[in-house]
């Protein structure tokens, strides 16, 4: 009881700027993952990609994690990443990009597989375009025959996506997009591209890091980047991108 009172007393000061994970039913009850995510939460469901499967779990009761479906997506290749957009899920696999719809959130339904050469590839989506990086990974045999490039795919027709641009890369990993800014972890660099025209991307800046970048989240003018030595953050607007912090 004393704890309760203390918590109540503190809540005004603390929780208003320091909220807990269990505060609610608003849109902030879930967050934002990077392009390399294997888990994503939408409403009362948790979606997990693992190897060949897309699994769905009901999380409406916080004391239970109940599987509602386990769909074999790709028998011969690995599912690497999951990216939610509106009522669609985009899965990056070693053989291509899968699109599933969530008309029934408990059982995602296969819409399309956009295939490409064997490679490792995360995907992010903005508007009617998907941005996919394909990477050669010599440490993992399943990706070692790939290519290194960025592909832009028009997904306005989810059952007939088409490539509208291909750009050579060094060795790309995670990527993120926010408005006109496209960020790509490429080799030892953070590559910033102008995506004002998704059909003709242009390079704004290529910044060499003191380690290998892995993934990014671009949100509200702040870029968060995880790389082999820690975490970096940048602020960006128009043509200006500036490093603001690093922690190890």
């Amino acid at each position: 009881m004393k704890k309760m009172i203390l918590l109540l007393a503190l809540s005004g000061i603390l929780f208003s700027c320091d909220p807990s994970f269990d505060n609610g039913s608003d849109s902030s009850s879930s967050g934002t993952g990077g392009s390399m995510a294997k888990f994503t939460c939408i409403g009362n469901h948790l979606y997990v990609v693992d190897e060949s499967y897309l699994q769905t779990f009901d999380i409406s009761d916080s004391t239970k994690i109940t599987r509602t479906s386990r769909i074999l997506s790709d028998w011969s290749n690995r599912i690497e990443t999951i990216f939610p957009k509106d009522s669609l899920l985009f899965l990056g696999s070693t053989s291509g990009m899968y699109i599933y719809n969530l008309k029934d959130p408990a059982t995602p339904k296969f819409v399309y597989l956009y295939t490409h050469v064997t490679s490792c590839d995360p995907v992010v989506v903005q508007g009617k375009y998907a941005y996919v990086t394909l990477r050669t990974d010599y440490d993992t045999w399943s990706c070692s025959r790939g290519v290194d490039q960025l592909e832009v795919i028009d997904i306005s027709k989810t059952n007939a996506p088409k490539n509208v641009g291909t750009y050579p890369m060094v060795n790309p990993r995670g990527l993120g997009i926010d408005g006109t800014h496209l960020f790509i972890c490429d080799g030892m660099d953070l590559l910033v591209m102008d995506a004002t025209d998704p059909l003709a991307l242009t390079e704004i800046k290529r910044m060499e890091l003191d380690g290998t970048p892995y993934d990014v989240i671009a949100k509200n003018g702040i870029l968060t980047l995880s790389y082999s030595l820690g975490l970096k953050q940048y602020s960006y607007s128009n043509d200006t991108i500036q490093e603001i912090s690093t922690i190890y």
Partner: protein
Amino acid sequence: MKKLLLLFAIVLFSGSDVYNGVSYIPMLMDRSQLEASVQMVASSMPIRTPGRIYVYQNWLLLVEQYKGIHLIDNTDPAHPVRKAFLRVPGCQSMAVGNGILYVDNAVDLVGIKIDLGSLQAHEVARNKKALPEINSPNGYVPWEFSRINRPANTEIVGWTNKTAIL
């Protein structure tokens, strides 16, 4: 898929986990230990092997590969502060849904309620063996470390490499 990979491993490498000259050995944990392993470490920990990232309100979550999650107060992105470390053996991924943090605790999927004010964590749900075993960085679990070839009731919570002679 796993069977296929194993066959590949056996054919190519005579059953040992060697690829590109690097071999890995698994870190094992008893199941009973695993189920009591999720804990908040009050103090922060240095970042050693960073992995996936997640933004939740003014917090950043950063996976420490196979070890857990750094909780970073990012109220001021110019001055992020490592506040605490959530110990989750075998952790690689995370997402927040309905205010609960979901993580992989090796092959188990675990729901954790976190109070970011007092930095306390309570496990509220666990779905055992919901996920496949953690592959070695080479992309598979070598035959010699499969369930039938390692101590009973153990789970793989990570991999360490030892330089091979290949």
